[in-house]
């Protein structure tokens, strides 16, 4: 296997332009990330931090108001930004798949499960209905759905939330993609069902050699599932690196505070570290570092100049002036 990353984002920026062109929302700003084959990358951030827009940018499936305005996006050595819409279509669902947040809403209520699972196989591989259905049957078995033959002929509303989420998973892996992007795939599920689903995703990853991108607001999922993590705040990746390193030695004050603000099981009633203030509005970002108004360690420089990505250690950049100091 070559050392070349499977997916590479280089200073990628996606901006929303409002109808009159008066306001620009920098939903994704200068994001650089790499993902290697078989690896799991977690992208964490709060609502409005731009993580979903980032995922949709990778697939180039943005809403009309959003545009990729800069940077580069390479998948398996190919420049995705140079692809025609038709070429992108052959990548979506076939080589890069994605699971959406809401399993209840992401299946079409009017078609059978079999039809919807077989669909990508038929479209991308041009196989006939019968063969596509038998493939769908084995896919349902892959995602541990009992009695797949019967389930194929049923409609989505006849199934529970956990089952539907598995079906969405089956659709995603139907064409043996290289990368699977999962956007908050477990937020609507119960704790024990979430555990089932996370285990399933890990098994699928192993069996099919997938690279996973997990988009979540939950650091716990990152801790359990991911090899590397990128922390997003106000459209920027403010810190990224190997999961253990980030949890043990976070360089950015936001990452640090985030890790410390989560109650731990068995830690007893200690006081939590709270982050004061509110997440910023992407349309009116503060000057300088966008975390600066909430940062307890902000210095004068933070208020005027946005910090660049500074390598705290190899493969561990952080956008913070303090990281710069600690390095020296």
């Amino acid at each position: 296997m070559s050392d070349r990353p499977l997916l590479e984002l280089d200073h990628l920026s996606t901006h929303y332009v409002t109808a009159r062109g008066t306001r620009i929302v920098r939903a994704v700003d200068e994001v650089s990330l790499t993902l290697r084959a078989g690896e799991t990358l977690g992208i964490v951030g709060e609502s409005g931090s731009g993580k979903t827009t980032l995922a949709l940018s990778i697939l180039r499936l943005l809403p009309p108001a959003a545009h990729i305005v800069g940077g580069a996006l390479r998948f398996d050595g190919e420049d995705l930004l140079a692809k025609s819409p038709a070429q992108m279509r052959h990548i979506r669902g076939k080589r890069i798949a994605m699971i959406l947040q809401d399993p209840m809403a992401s299946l079409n209520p009017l078609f059978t499960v079999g039809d919807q699972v077989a669909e990508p196989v038929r479209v991308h591989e041009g196989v006939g209905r019968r063969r596509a259905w038998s493939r769908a049957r084995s896919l349902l078995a892959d995602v541990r759905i009992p009695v797949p033959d019967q389930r194929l002929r049923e409609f989505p509303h006849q199934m529970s939330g956990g089952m539907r989420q598995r079906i969405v998973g089956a659709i995603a892996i139907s064409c043996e993609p290289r990368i699977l992007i999962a956007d908050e795939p477990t937020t609507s599920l119960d704790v024990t069902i979430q555990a089932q689903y996370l285990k399933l995703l890990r098994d699928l990853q192993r069996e099919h050699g997938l690279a996973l991108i997990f988009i979540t607001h939950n650091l716990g999922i990152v801790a359990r599932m991911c090899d590397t993590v990128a922390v997003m705040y106000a459209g920027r990746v403010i810190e990224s690196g190997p999961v253990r390193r980030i949890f043990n030695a976070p360089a950015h004050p936001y990452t640090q505070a985030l890790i410390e603000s989560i109650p731990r099981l068995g830690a007893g009633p200690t006081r939590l570290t709270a982050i004061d203030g509110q997440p910023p509005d992407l349309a009116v970002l503060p000057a300088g570092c966008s975390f600066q108004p909430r940062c307890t360690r902000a210095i004068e420089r933070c208020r005027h100049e946005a910090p660049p990505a500074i390598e705290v250690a190899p493969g561990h950049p952080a956008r913070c002036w303090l990281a710069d100091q600690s390095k020296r």
Partner: protein
Amino acid sequence: MSVSPAPASPSRVASVPVAWRLAAFRTEGLPMIPIMILVTLALVAILAELIAPYNPEVGALGERFRPPAWIAGGSTAHLLGTDHIGRDVLSRLIFGARVSMVVGFTAVMVAGVLGTVLGILSGYLGGWVDQVIMRVTDTWLALPALTFAIFLAAIVGPSQWNIVIILGAVYWTRYARVIRGEVLSLKERDFVRLAIVAGCSKRTIMRRHILPNVLNTAIVLATLMLGVVIVTEAALSFLGVGVPPPKPAWGLMLADGKKGLMAGYWWLTVFPGVCIVLMVLAANLLGDWLRVKLDPQLRQL
């Protein structure tokens, strides 16, 4: 601790009280065309006596079927021509605006108040109150509005105020339906539960927590309904069960205009129709605009 109020997120803007929003309006956002049409028509209706050149109900038989001034045979004495008994079309149109305005607004008010109150009671109280109100509503909604109105008009006989009551009786069900749906979802909102926990009575909850939150919907509905009501009034008058002659209602003028239609006296058909369309168009435009501004959920009415 920094707790400066965060800027409003755009998705929540729709839930601002009407009065508060209206106060904050700047003219730039307003739909000027429909407002200008409605204001003009309202002024015309109010000042009809001052503007109209002739008595709208009295004609001169010698002046029958005069074409508009700019057509050969017309004169500036009757700018928009005269009808089959020599009444001045312009004067009748001016007084007709008054009829349409008065009938339209009062009927919408009657239907709106009745429907909103019953919708709130039905939705909030539930139980048998809800059952009774909703079964009546469903059945009345099943009747085609125009046919129902014709039937009622045929029973009570034509008069301007009867028409108002009839239209109110026919159209309140639309409000009740929509408002009830809204109330049912409001009822499940936590602030209503918290009001119960705080010890508020049912009346207080309906007045303070439910009513203000359905007002936007009621206003949007009323605006959209204005057009419907005006067309229905015109249709009733056109059929002869609406405003009784010789009062100058636009629908009545169209009915009269039919007498000269085959002879090619087009102005008797075109002008009253244009007036109706202008007014309905203005109401619909305003309603659409309000709907987008105040109540994005009400999409397909």
